[in-house]
């Protein structure tokens, strides 16, 4: 290539591994990331659902909060009940703003002597600044920029990881702990973004290639790019920040009321609590829904959703084909009155009104290991 069309993108520690395996690299959230390998997105998707896929998610932001008041301090920024989180447990929560909008979604783990956070790649800088601006001096924010993050996902993931780190295979869904792979200390969470059983491994950057190659050497494991990561998470009904959720959507509209702790509801002590709790009690004006389209044409982000009479109902926020669902599928926000499974709607694609049905999420059942 004569010039670098990707510009000044950062590279993860696995960049050379991706290129050596024939990945097509694309700019994503400031990183050069593999969108697919030579087998293609559909094959990668099906491989993850039937065996195991290894994803490089080192572009995501990892950081830790130190200090005895870390959970209480973080609770001032999120509606999750983090003070109640047991050691070794992981929780999905949201940074909310004063209007009840979502600033980012994140995973928080009680790692014993600190909280371990994973935030979206595109929100790393925002979230670090947000935390720095609001945390008390007694809570120390430590970016973990010297760590890579790998996700091993799929029904064979537990067998593969169990051969290398038996202690990790004992974890149940949304639990985490330390493990060693070939003498390398890793932090393992039984979690992911595919709807499948699987693990996320935080690894020292300088050991990332060794761990990745060790996992890829397992016959069940293939490398998977961001293209399949997106089709897998869409089928699993999982939100993508900046698309399905953002500062214009509340947790209630997004169907994420389950992330708001009982104690937090009673105390109403998180950003945007008045808006969010009012919507919880009286219903939000609109809701996130799943859509299944009748034909083969996908409806993508931005497509209008209408009723049979052409009255606007909302907008598609994520859409494409569901390789396992076997149909075009989408998520979108629609007027609350239309957010009823079985409701017939239309998705407007290039001027055509494609028949679609509001359906329950997820499109493909989760297969988490709840123990």
């Amino acid at each position, binding site marked *: *290539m004569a010039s670098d069309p990707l510009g000044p993108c950062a590279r993860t520690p696995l960049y050379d591994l991706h290129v050596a395996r024939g990945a097509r690299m694309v700019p994503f959230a400031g990183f050069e990331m593999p*969108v*697919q390998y030579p087998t*293609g*997105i*559909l094959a990668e998707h099906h491989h993850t659902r039937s065996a195991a896929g290894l994803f490089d998610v080192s572009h995501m932001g990892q950081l830790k909060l130190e200090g005895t008041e870390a959970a209480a301090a973080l609770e001032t920024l999120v509606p999750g009940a983090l003070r109640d989180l047991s050691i070794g447990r992981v929780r999905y929560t949201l940074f909310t703003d004063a209007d009840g909008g979502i600033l980012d979604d994140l995973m928080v783990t009680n790692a014993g002597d600190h909280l371990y956070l994973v935030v979206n790649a595109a929100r790393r800088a925002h979230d670090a600044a947000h935390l720095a601006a609001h945390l008390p001096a007694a809570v120390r924010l430590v970016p973990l920029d010297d760590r890579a993050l790998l996700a091993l996902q799929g029904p064979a993931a537990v067998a593969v990881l169990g051969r290398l780190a038996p202690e990790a295979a004992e974890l149940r869904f949304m639990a985490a702990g330390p493990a060693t792979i070939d003498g390398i200390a890793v932090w393992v969470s039984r979690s992911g973004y595919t709807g499948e059983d699987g693990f996320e491994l935080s690894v020292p950057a300088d050991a990332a290639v060794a761990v990745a190659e060790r996992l890829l050497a397992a016959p069940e494991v293939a490398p998977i790019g961001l*293209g399949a990561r997106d*089709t897998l998470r869409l089928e699993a009904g999982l939100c993508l920040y900046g698309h399905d959720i953002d500062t214009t959507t509340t947790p209630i509209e997004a169907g994420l009321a389950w992330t708001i702790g009982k104690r937090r509801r009673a105390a109403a002590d998180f950003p945007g609590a008045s808006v969010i709790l009012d919507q919880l009690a009286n219903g939000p004006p609109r809701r996130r829904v799943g859509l299944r389209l009748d034909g*083969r*044409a*996908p409806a*993508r982000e931005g497509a209008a959703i209408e009723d049979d009479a052409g009255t606007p109902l909302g907008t598609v926020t994520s859409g*494409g*084909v569901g*390789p396992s669902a076997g149909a*075009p599928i989408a998520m979108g926000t629609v007027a609350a009155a239309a957010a009823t499974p079985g409701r017939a709607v239309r998705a407007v694609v*290039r001027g055509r009104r494609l028949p679609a049905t509001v359906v329950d999420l997820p499109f493909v059942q989760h297969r988490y290991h709840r123990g």
Partner: protein
Amino acid sequence: MGVMKFTEDHEWIRVDDPVTVGVEATVGITDHAQTQLGDIVFVELPEVGRTVAKGGEVAVVESVKAASEVYAPVDGKVTAVNAALADEPARVNAAPEGDGWFFKFAIAAPAQLDGLMDADAYHAFIEGTG
């Protein structure tokens, strides 16, 4: 002898008789295009009888990742479409210059074919942009 020409937008057009007005040509997307697009999941084909000017949008090809327009290589009128792509869009990946053809086209101005690339020029073009 037939000829096959290529556009900078990665369409191909094949015609048995490149001089007669109204002669039927076949149009599709190139092997390079299908490789770049990846797994193709849907093709929106034009209506038979539609008249399209050179460079006009005439079809849409959807990969897993995104939708892309297909443009008319020359002026003409659509005479047939490859209905098999409705159920088997992956034919475009498997045989982009064979079973994966998009539509047939009655060419209004055969001289426009002279402005398109031949196979050698197209291969040099994709090397240069690759």
